C-alpha cells in the first residue's frame, strides 16, 4: 500500500530559490507599488537615502493598512490562491509579490503597518535568521519595539498605511566603498524613476490620481503614446469581449522625432529608444506590463518606429495570458493574436506615412536627384545634373576639365555615407544640423591650393 511522506521544502534551500526568481530592482519595487495601489494608497513614497554605511530602501504608502493578524497572514509565502479571480483594480497576482520581490533585493524585509485608529504593528523576515534556524520564523514586533527598526521614522506619517523597509540590500554590491554604493544606488534609483514614470503613468493623472515620489522628488508620468502632443495621431480602437471580461485595443502613432522638443525626446529614450520601443503595450488593470516589441507578430522597422498598439486586459485574464509572478511578462493567447493582428497594420502604415512625408520634403532638393526604379527596385542618389549653378560652372570649364568634374561628382555620389546618415538619423536626428556647415574648412583648402 502506498503511503504519503511529508516532503515540505527545506526552508534554508527554499529561501535561496525564492531569492532567485529573477526580479530586478525595478520589477521588485513595482510589485510593492501594486500592493500599495490595491490597498487604495493615494501617496506612494520611496526613500533610498544616500550616505548610509548599509543602504536601505523604504516604500511607504497611505493605503488602508493592516491589523496585526492580517499582517502575519500576509507575510506568509503564497498567502493567496492565484486561481482565485482578482477583483477589478487588484494588481496582485500570486500573493507572493511582497516576499519574493523583497527577498530578491534584500536579506531583511520589515513591514510596518497601521489601520486607521489603531497603533502601528510590524513584522520582519530575516533571511539569515531563516538560514540559521532552518525554519520559517517570523519576527513580530510589539508596538513599543517599533523604534528599534532602522528606517522607521518613529511616528507613522499617515492615519493609515504600510511601510516596507529593505535592509542588507543584495541589489547593491556588498564589497563596495560607501561612495561607490551611493553611486550605484543613485544610478539604480534613476532607472527606477523612469520605470515607475512609464509603468504607472496611468495612475498619475485623472480623478483617481496617485502621487509617486522618490526621496521626496515627485515622479512625472511618461506617456508612451504622447497623447495630446503636437503631431500625435489616434488610430482605430476596439473592445473585444472574451472569457473574464473585455480586452480593449487602441492604436497610436507618435509625432515624428523632429516635432519633439529635446527634453521629451530624451525622456522617450531618444530616437533609438523610440524605434526600439515600437509595438504592443499591454496594461493589466492600467499598470503597464509589456512595454513595446511586437511579440513575434511583426518585425521592428525604422519606418514603423512611431507605431504603438495599446492593449488593456483585466486581472481576471491572468491565467489565459500566463502573467508571471513578477508581472513582467505575459503571453498573448493564440485566439487573441488573430484579433490583435488586425490592429497592427494601421499604426505601422501611418508611421510609415509620417516618415515618407518627412522624406518627400527632402526630395524637393535641387542639388540631389533621387532615382527610384520601379522595375529593378533600385534606389540611387545622384548629384542633380540639371542644377543651374552646376550648369553655370560647367560652362566656365574647359572640355578637358569637365570630365574631371563629372568623375568627381560621380565619386561624391557613390561615396555618400548612407549607412552613417541612416544610423545617426535613427539615433540622434535632432543633432544633425546640415544648415550649420562650417564652410571655412573648405575655404581654407581653396586658399592653400589656389
Amino acid at each position: 500500500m502506498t503511503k504519503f511522506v511529508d516532503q515540505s521544502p527545506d526552508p534554508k534551500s527554499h529561501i535561496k530559490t525564492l531569492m532567485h526568481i529573477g526580479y530586478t530592482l525595478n520589477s521588485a519595487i513595482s510589485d510593492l507599488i501594486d500592493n500599495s495601489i490595491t490597498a487604495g494608497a493615494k501617496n506612494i513614497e520611496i526613500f533610498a537615502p544616500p550616505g548610509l554605511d548599509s543602504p536601505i530602501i523604504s516604500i511607504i504608502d497611505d493605503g488602508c493598512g493592516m491589523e496585526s493578524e492580517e499582517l502575519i497572514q500576509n507575510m506568509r509565502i503564497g498567502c493567496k490562491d492565484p486561481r482565485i479571480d482578482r477583483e477589478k483594480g487588484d494588481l496582485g497576482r500570486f500573493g507572493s509579490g511582497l516576499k519574493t520581490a523583497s527577498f530578491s533585493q534584500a536579506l531583511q524585509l520589515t513591514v510596518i503597518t497601521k489601520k486607521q485608529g489603531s497603533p502601528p504593528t510590524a513584522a520582519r523576515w530575516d533571511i539569515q535568521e531563516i538560514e540559521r534556524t532552518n525554519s520559517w520564523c517570523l519576527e513580530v514586533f510589539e508596538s513599543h519595539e517599533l523604534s528599534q527598526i532602522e528606517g522607521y521614522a518613529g511616528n507613522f506619517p499617515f492615519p493609515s498605511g504600510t511601510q516596507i523597509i529593505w535592509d542588507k540590500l543584495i541589489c547593491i554590491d556588498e564589497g563596495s566603498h560607501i561612495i561607490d554604493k551611493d553611486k550605484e544606488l543613485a544610478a539604480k534609483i534613476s532607472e527606477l524613476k523612469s520605470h515607475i514614470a512609464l509603468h504607472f503613468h496611468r495612475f498619475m493623472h485623472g480623478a483617481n490620481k496617485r502621487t509617486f515620489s522618490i526621496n521626496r522628488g515627485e515622479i512625472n508620468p511618461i506617456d508612451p503614446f504622447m497623447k495630446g502632443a503636437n503631431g500625435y495621431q489616434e488610430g482605430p480602437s476596439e473592445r473585444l469581449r472574451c472569457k473574464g471580461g473585455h480586452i480593449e485595443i487602441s492604436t497610436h502613432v507618435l509625432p515624428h522625432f523632429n516635432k519633439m522638443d529635446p527634453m521629451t525626446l530624451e525622456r522617450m529614450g531618444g530616437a533609438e529608444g523610440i524605434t526600439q520601443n515600437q509595438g504592443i503595450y499591454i496594461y493589466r488593470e492600467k499598470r503597464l506590463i509589456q512595454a513595446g516589441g511586437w511579440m513575434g507578430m511583426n518585425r521592428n522597422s525604422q519606418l514603423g518606429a512611431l507605431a504603438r498598439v495599446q492593449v488593456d486586459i483585466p486581472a481576471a485574464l491572468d491565467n489565459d495570458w500566463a502573467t508571471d509572478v513578477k508581472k513582467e511578462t505575459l503571453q498573448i493567447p493564440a485566439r487573441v493574436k488573430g484579433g490583435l493582428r488586425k490592429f497592427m497594420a494601421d499604426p505601422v502604415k501611418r508611421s510609415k506615412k509620417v516618415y515618407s512625408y518627412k522624406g518627400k520634403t527632402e526630395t524637393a532638393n535641387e542639388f540631389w536627384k533621387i532615382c527610384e526604379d520601379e522595375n529593378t527596385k533600385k534606389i540611387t542618389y545622384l548629384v542633380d545634373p540639371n542644377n543651374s549653378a552646376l550648369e553655370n560652372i560647367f560652362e566656365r570649364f574647359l572640355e578637358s576639365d569637365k570630365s574631371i568634374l563629372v568623375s568627381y561628382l560621380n565619386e561624391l555620389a557613390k561615396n555618400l555615407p548612407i549607412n552613417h546618415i541612416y544610423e545617426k538619423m535613427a539615433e540622434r536626428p535632432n543633432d544633425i544640423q546640415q544648415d550649420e556647415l562650417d564652410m571655412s574648412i573648405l575655404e581654407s583648402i581653396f586658399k592653400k591650393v589656389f
Partner: protein
Amino acid sequence: MELEVQDKISTCIKVAACICGKDGLISEVEEATIFKIVNETFPDFGDSKIEEALVEFFNSKMQIEDYLVHINDEIFREFTIILSKRSASADGLNIDENIALQKAMIFYTENAND
C-alpha cells in the same frame, strides 16, 4: 417574464455568442448588436440578463449543438437565426462565423419537426 422564456432567450444569446465568438472573442459592435436586438425584441428581459447569458457562455464548455438542441419552438429558432446573423454580420461575416451560422441553420432544417 416567465422563467422558461427567460431561459430560451438566454440560450438564443448563447448561440449568437457561439457564432460571433468563434475565435473566443466577440467584437464591440457584435456585442452591441446582441444587446440592441434582444432589447428591441424582448424589452422586459433587460441588460443584466443579457450580460449574465454572455458570462455563462464564456464560462461554459458547451458547443453550439448543445445550445441549439434546447430551442424547440419555431419562433425562438427563427429569433436565434436572426440574432446570430445580424450580430455576426455587424462587423462583417468571416468564414468561421459563416460556417457556424450555416451549421445552426442546417441543424434547424434537419430537426424541423422536433
